[in-house]
């Protein structure tokens, strides 16, 4: 499909990563545009006036916003290659439920792990691990959340993996010790080209978070 596809993104974003992975999975050529979130481009503000956030997918000048919606959109338009959502409506509803769960429950405690101290930090770690344990139970002994193949839920969760080193270092805990199956799953995902090409390096993310902390936390 010879259409112009542009992605407005920010390299450490676990939400932007979702879209990058799917674009590689589907073999779609696109232009990547890095946004400085402290100085948002007029294009970003024009394409996402409601939330003013990345990622934004622009196809032939028309924007699609919100990462999980973008992923579903790409899956529907480029439906003949590497399908991500299940074809059965009930399984599809279950996949959407788990992505909704991830979106509602994981971001907030994960953010508090690197931006708080003391009791607040301990509470954030506890909450974060609880959420991962629920997801681990969902995974059970399947290779991926989607079953035998990498799918929608896997795409939407794996972006957090490159932040794990930062969480573990600032939170002083081991995610693998608490949730070994999640780590095994994540490593399995990184063996896929779409993931290894799209996930930023965990140490680089750590460096980025270190800079962010200077604004939020007094060390």
């Amino acid at each position: 499909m010879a259409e112009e596809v542009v992605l407005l993104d920010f390299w450490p974003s676990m939400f932007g990563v979702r879209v990058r992975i799917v674009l590689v999975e589907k073999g779609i050529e696109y232009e990547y545009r890095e946004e400085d979130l402290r100085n948002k481009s007029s294009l970003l503000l024009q394409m996402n006036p409601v939330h003013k956030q990345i990622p934004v997918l622009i196809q032939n000048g028309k924007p699609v916003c919100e990462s999980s919606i973008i992923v579903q959109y790409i899956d529907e338009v480029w439906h003949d290659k590497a399908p991500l959502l299940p074809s059965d409506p009930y399984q599809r509803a279950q996949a959407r439920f788990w992505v909704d769960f991830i979106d509602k429950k994981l971001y907030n405690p994960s953010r508090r792990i690197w931006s708080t101290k003391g009791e607040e930090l301990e509470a954030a770690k506890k909450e974060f691990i609880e959420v991962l344990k629920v997801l681990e139970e969902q995974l059970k002994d399947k290779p991926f959340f989607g079953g035998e193949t990498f799918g929608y839920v896997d795409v939407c969760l794996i972006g957090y993996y490159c932040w794990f080193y930062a969480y573990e270092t600032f939170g002083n805990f081991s995610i693998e010790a608490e949730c070994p199956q999640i780590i095994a799953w994540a490593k399995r995902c990184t063996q896929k080209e779409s993931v290894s090409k799209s996930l930023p390096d965990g140490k680089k993310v750590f460096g980025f978070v270190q800079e962010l902390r200077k604004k939020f936390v007094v060390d």
Partner: protein
Amino acid sequence: MSKGGEIVLLDCWVSPFCIRVKIALAEKGVEYETRAEEDLFGDKSDLLLTSNPIHKKVPVLLHNGKPLCESTIIVNYIDETWPSPPLLPTSTYNRAQARFWADFIDKKVFDAGHNIWASKGVVPETAKKDFIEILKQLEGALGEKDFFGGDSFGFLDIILIPLTSWFYTIEKFGGFEVKEVCPKISAWMNRCMERETVAKVLPDPEKVYEFAIMIRKMLGIE
């Protein structure tokens, strides 16, 4: 037993999220059984706790015993399982837009309203301003169309209209009227209320107001 199998809805009359599901099922002409969860603040039924162990909330739709949770996801499921008449737009791009606005509504409307009707003491001006701003953004999405999807009542109308049963309550506490600050939304509400599928299931706004008063007393906000 309906043509599509056994359908049970775990429900609460005042929940706008449950109402979404009821409207969607009615639009599709699907018969279902309702089981009222009366005591959402105390003892939730075993069926609710086993069907929705993660969130323990209504609505839950049980289709041949298999549970579906989260109202927007349930409405999507209903549309895909009973395709006629279609609720979501047929174009992929318009579907993404509809999902975007449903997500916006889910993230913003109920909480902004809650900040007004569950406010302790004087309602902050910022709370009123935020709520009205959200409605104005939705007015922008509606534009000059009769319904959010165009000429026909559809997915996004179903996602928003149940929340409007709380507008009377929000207006009383906020000291403003939606028909004055957002006339297009008000006109759209009236258009939706002309549909039997909506009018039959939307609760009486006065009853919602009484419910809100009771909640405020329970939470000690009086």
